[in-house]
C-alpha cells in the first residue's frame, strides 16, 4: 500500500481539525430534554441490563458521532490517495492479437513452440481480467482471423485460445490491426458542412503477442487503441533455412534445367549443412557441407538437365536441409516439373516476313506451334470457334482487329483491341523515344537504344495497363489486363502496306538483334512457353488461378494432407483455388473422362519468417512500441471506493438521524 500526498500542509491542518471539531460540536450539541417520570426504578433496571455491554451502548448512543467521524476519516483517506502496485489489467476492453504465422512454430523457447508460450501468457492475462472486462482474440499470419469477438466469458476465451494453431503462412499484421481498430476507431461520414462520427469510439487495450517478424505498417493510426507488445522468442535462435528456390527453364539458361536455392543462416556462428534434392521422393542429388557464415546466406545449384527426357509426367522435387534446427518449416521446399506443353500460337498478318522469321527460331519451334493466317481467316468459322473455346494460347494480330476478343492472350501490332477499352491517338511523326520498361518479362534483356520508329500513336488502356515503350507524346507500347488474360498493344506497325500494296518499313526494329529476343519473350510470357516449371512462385496462403482447357468445367485439387477440393470454373474462365494453407505438392485433376492432371508446389519461402531473431520493438504507424518483457505493474487507486464509502456513511447517518427510533 502506498500513499500520494495530494494536499499542502495548510490544507492538512484544516482537514485534520475537522474530526476534533465534530466531537466538540457533538458534545456541545447534545442537550437531553428533561422529562419527569413517576419513577426511574424500571428504567434504571433496564439500563443496568443494557450496561452489561456498556461500551457498545455508549457507542450506540453516539452512533451519529461515530458515523460523522467515519465519514471524515474516509474522506481524509481518500485525499491521501491510497493505492498499490498490481498486475491487474486496467481497462475495459482488451484485444489479444496473437501471431500464428509460420515463425511462431519455432521451438527456441526451451522446446515449447513460440505459439504455446504466447498462448500461456494470454491465458494468464485472461485470468487477470476483471469481471466486467471484455476481451477479444484475433490471430494473424498473412491474414487476420477473429477467433473470438468481444466477450466477458473468460472460459470461452480460453477455449477459443486453445484452438489456435500455427499456420504455415508469412506475417502481415495490417489486416489484424484494421480489424482491431474497427471498433476502437469508428469511421466518419463527411458531409458538405461537417463530418460526423458514425459510432461511439470504444477505446481498447491492444496486446500484441508476436515475434515481431511482420511487415511494417506505416499508415496505421492507433486512435483510441493503446498498444502493448509482448515479444515471443529469443535473441539467438538456431535456424538455417531455405529462403528462395527456383528452377530455371531451359530457354533462359540456354537449354539447361537448373534448380537454385538460397540458404540463410540465422545462427550467430558459422554453420555448414548438408542439402539433399529428392525427385519423386528418391534422392537425386546432394551437396554436403554448404558453408554459411554467421547470419549470412549462400546459394546452391543443382543440375536437372538429365530429368528432361523423363518428363512425360509431373516430377515432384523436394529440396531439404538434413540438419534439424529450431524452425523446421523452412528446411524443406517443394517444386514440380510438369511435362512441356507446346504453346498454340496464331499469327494473323498480311505477310510480315520479319515476324515469320522471328517466330521460326529453333527455341520457339520447340516450345510452340505457330500458325500463320491472313486477316480473312478472322471471319472464318474455324477461327471463331477456336477463339471462343480458348484453343489458342496467344493470337498476334498484325495490323488487323478481330470483331470480338478471343479467350486467350493477344498481341496487337499497329492496331488496338476492339471496343472502347483501348484508345489510340492520331499517327504522329516523328516518334522520339524517351523510355522503355526493362523490368517487365516481355522486355527482359532487350537493348533498344538504337531503335527507330517512324510513325506511332499514343495509347491508353484499361486500369492496370503498364507502359512498356514511351515516346515524347505518350505510350506507344503497353500491356493491359483483360480478365485472366493480357493484351500487348504496339501502336506502330513494323511494316506498312501502302495503297499500291507495297510494304513500307515503319521501324528498324525487325532488323535488330533485340526483335527476335522480344518475340521470344512474348511467346514465353504470353504464350505460356514457360510452363515446363509450374507456378514456381506459389506461396502458402496465395490464391492461385489455374488455367485448363475450355471443355473442363471442374477440377479436383488434392492438397498435401490428402484433402480434396472440387473447384468450378470461375466467370473469368480460370479455376480459382485458395486453400493453399499447407506447404507441399498439390495435384490438379480435370474432372473429365480423360482426367488429365498436373501438379504445383506451394512453399513458405519467406526470409522474414526464417529470420527468427525476435524483434524488441514494433514499428506501427510511425510509433515504436517497445516490447514488454513482463506485465507492467499498474497502480490501483482506492480513493474512489473511499468516496463511495463516505457517501454510504452519509446516507446511513441521514437515515438514522431521521429514524432514530428504529435503532
Amino acid at each position, binding site marked *: 500500500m502506498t500513499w500520494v500526498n495530494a494536499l499542502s500542509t495548510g490544507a492538512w491542518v484544516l482537514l485534520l481539525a475537522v474530526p476534533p471539531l465534530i466531537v466538540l460540536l457533538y458534545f456541545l450539541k447534545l442537550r437531553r*430534554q428533561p422529562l419527569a417520570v413517576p419513577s426511574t426504578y424500571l428504567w434504571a433496571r433496564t439500563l443496568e*441490563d443494557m450496561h452489561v455491554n456498556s461500551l457498545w451502548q455508549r457507542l450506540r448512543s453516539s452512533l451519529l458521532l461515530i458515523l460523522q467521524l467515519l465519514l471524515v476519516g474516509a474522506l481524509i483517506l481518500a485525499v491521501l490517495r491510497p493505492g498499490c502496485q498490481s498486475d491487474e489489467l486496467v481497462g475495459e476492453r482488451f484485444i489479444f492479437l496473437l501471431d500464428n504465422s509460420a515463425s511462431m512454430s519455432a521451438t527456441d523457447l526451451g522446446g515449447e513452440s513460440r505459439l504455446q508460450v504466447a498462448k500461456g501468457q494470454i491465458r494468464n492475462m485472461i485470468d487477470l481480467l476483471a469481471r466486467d472486462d471484455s476481451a477479444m482474440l484475433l490471430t494473424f499470419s498473412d491474414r487476420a482471423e477473429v477467433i473470438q469477438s468481444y466477450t466477458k466469458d473468460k472460459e470461452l476465451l480460453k477455449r477459443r485460445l486453445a484452438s489456435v494453431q500455427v499456420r504455415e503462412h508469412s506475417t502481415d499484421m495490417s489486416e489484424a490491426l484494421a480489424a482491431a481498430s474497427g471498433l476502437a476507431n469508428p469511421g466518419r461520414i463527411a458531409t458538405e458542412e461537417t463530418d460526423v462520427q458514425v459510432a461511439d469510439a470504444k477505446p481498447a487495450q491492444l496486446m500484441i503477442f508476436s515475434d515481431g517478424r511482420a511487415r511494417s505498417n506505416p499508415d496505421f493510426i492507433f486512435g483510441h487503441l493503446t498498444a502493448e507488445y509482448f515479444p515471443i522468442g529469443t535473441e539467438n535462435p538456431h535456424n538455417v533455412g531455405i529462403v528462395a528456390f527456383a528452377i530455371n527453364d531451359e530457354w533462359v539458361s540456354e537449354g539447361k534445367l537448373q534448380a537454385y536455392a538460397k540458404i540463410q543462416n540465422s545462427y550467430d556462428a558459422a554453420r555448414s549443412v548438408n542439402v539433399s534434392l529428392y525427385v519423386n521422393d528418391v534422392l537425386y542429388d546432394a551437396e554436403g557441407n554448404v558453408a554459411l557464415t554467421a547470419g549470412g546466406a549462400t546459394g546452391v545449384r543443382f543440375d536437372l538437365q538429365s530429368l528432361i527426357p523423363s518428363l512425360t509426367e509431373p516430377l515432384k522435387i523436394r529440396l531439404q536441409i538434413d540438419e534439424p534446427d529450431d524452425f523446421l518449416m523452412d528446411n524443406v521446399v517443394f517444386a514440380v516439373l510438369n511435362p512441356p506443353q507446346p504453346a498454340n500460337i496464331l499469327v494473323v498478318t498480311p505477310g510480315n516476313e520479319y515476324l515469320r522469321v522471328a517466330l521460326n527460331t529453333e527455341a520457339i519451334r520447340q516450345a510452340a506451334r505457330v500458325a500463320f493466317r491472313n486477316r480473312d481467316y478472322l471471319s472464318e468459322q474455324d477461327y471463331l470457334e477456336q477463339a471462343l473455346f480458348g484453343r489458342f494460347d496467344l493470337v498476334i494480330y498484325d495490323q488487323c482487329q478481330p470483331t470480338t476478343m478471343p479467350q486467350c492472350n493477344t498481341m496487337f501490332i499497329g492496331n488496338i483491341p476492339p471496343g472502347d477499352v483501348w484508345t489510340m491517338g492520331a499517327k504522329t511523326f516523328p516518334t522520339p523515344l524517351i523510355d522503355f520498361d526493362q523490368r517487365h518479362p516481355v522486355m527482359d534483356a532487350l537493348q533498344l537504344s538504337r531503335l527507330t520508329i517512324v510513325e506511332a500513336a499514343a495509347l491508353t488502356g484499361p486500369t492496370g495497363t503498364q507502359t512498356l515503350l514511351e515516346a515524347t507524346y505518350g505510350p506507344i507500347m503497353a500491356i493491359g489486363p483483360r480478365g485472366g488474360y493480357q493484351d500487348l498493344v504496339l501502336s506502330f506497325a513494323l511494316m506498312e502496306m501502302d495503297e499500291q500494296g507495297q510494304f513500307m518499313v515503319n521501324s528498324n526494329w525487325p532488323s535488330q538483334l533485340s526483335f527476335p529476343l522480344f518475340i521470344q519473350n512474348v511467346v514465353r510470357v504470353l504464350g505460356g512457353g514457360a510452363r515446363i516449371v509450374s507456378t514456381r512462385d506459389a506461396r502458402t496462403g496465395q490464391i492461385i488461378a489455374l488455367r485448363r482447357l475450355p471443355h473442363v468445367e471442374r477440377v479436383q485439387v488434392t492438397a498435401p494432407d490428402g484433402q480434396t477440393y472440387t473447384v468450378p470454373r470461375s466467370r473469368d474462365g480460370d479455376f480459382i483455388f485458395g486453400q493453399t494453407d499447407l506447404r507441399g505438392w498439390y495435384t490438379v485433376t480435370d474432372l473429365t473422362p480423360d482426367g488429365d492432371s498436373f501438379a504445383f508446389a506451394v512453399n513458405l519461402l519467406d526470409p522474414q519468417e526464417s529470420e527468427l531473431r525476435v524483434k524488441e520493438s514494433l514499428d506501427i504507424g510511425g510509433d515504436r512500441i517497445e516490447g514488454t518483457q513482463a506485465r507492467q505493474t499498474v497502480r490501483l487507486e482506492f480513493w474512489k471506493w473511499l468516496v463511495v464509502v463516505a457517501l454510504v456513511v452519509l446516507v446511513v447517518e441521514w437515515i438514522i438521524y431521521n429514524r432514530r427510533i428504529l435503532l
Partner: protein
Amino acid sequence: MAVNSSKDQLLTPELLSQLDRMELVSRKIFRGRMKGERRSRRKGQSVEFADYRNYVPGDDLRFIDWNLYARLERLFLKLFLEEEDLHFYALVDCSRSMDFGEPSKLFYAKQLAAALGYIGLCRSDRIRIEPLGSPLAQQAPVLRGRKSVWQMLGYLNQFPADADAPFESSLKSFCLRNSGKGILVLITDLMDKAGYEQALKYLIARDLDIYLIHVLSRAEIDPDLKGDLRLIDSEDGDAREITVSTRLLDRYKDTLARFIQGAREFCSKRSITYMMTSTDRPVDRLISRYLRQRGLVR
C-alpha cells in the same frame, strides 16, 4: 345516590347502583367485634340453625332444645350460625409516583378504594381507608354504615399526592396501629426503589386476607418516548439519561414484564391475591369482573 356531578367524582351514580348489590367476601373466618350482617362460620347467636351438640354443664340453658328432651329425654343444645361484621382495610399508596397518568394512578386508586369502601359500608362492615405514607393516616376514621359514605369520600379527597414516607415504614406503621383481622386491599404502583418485599412481609405476619392491586398508567406500560431524554424521578429526583430506541423500549417492556411477574410470584407464594391493572381499565369493570373473579366481591 349521586355524590356530585363533577368529572372527577370518585363514585358515579351508575357505579353506585352496581355496588349496591355487591358484598365483600373473605376467604378466612374472622371474629368481628360487633354483630353485623355477615353470616359467620362461627357458631353463635342468630336465628339461623346450624347444628346440635350434647349439653355439658355450664351451657346456657336458653339454648337447650326442650322439645327434643321431651321426646328423647336427653339434653341437646341447639347451635346457631353467628352473624358478625367484617373489618375492611384499604391502603392507598399516596407517593408522588402515583400522581401520574391520565387519570392519575392516585385518583384511580382512590376511586377503587371508595367503591370497595362503599360496598363494605352498605353491608355494615367496618371500613378503614388509609393514605399510605401520609401523616393523615394516623387520623383515618373507622367507618360503618351507609351513612358514613359522605365522610369516607370527604376523607378520600383529602389524600395528598406527595407522601414521602417509605413504603416499608408506612406499612409497618399500619400494622402497629391496627391489630384487627379482616380484608386488606393495598392499592399501589409498587414503585419503591427499596423494594416491596420487606414491606409486604409485615402484612403477611398479620392474619389478613390481603389483596394487592398493582396500578400502572398507560405511560408506564407502553411509554411513548423519542429522542435523547433525561428522565427525572418524581420521588427522589434521580436522573437517568437515555437515547430512546426500539431496542431500549423493548428492553424496558421486558423489564416491566419481569417486574410484574416477580410481584405476582411473590404474592402467590404468600397467599396474597395479586392483580395488575391499568388506569385505562374502568373501576366498575375492574370490580364487577376482575375482583369478582378473584373472590373479593360477589
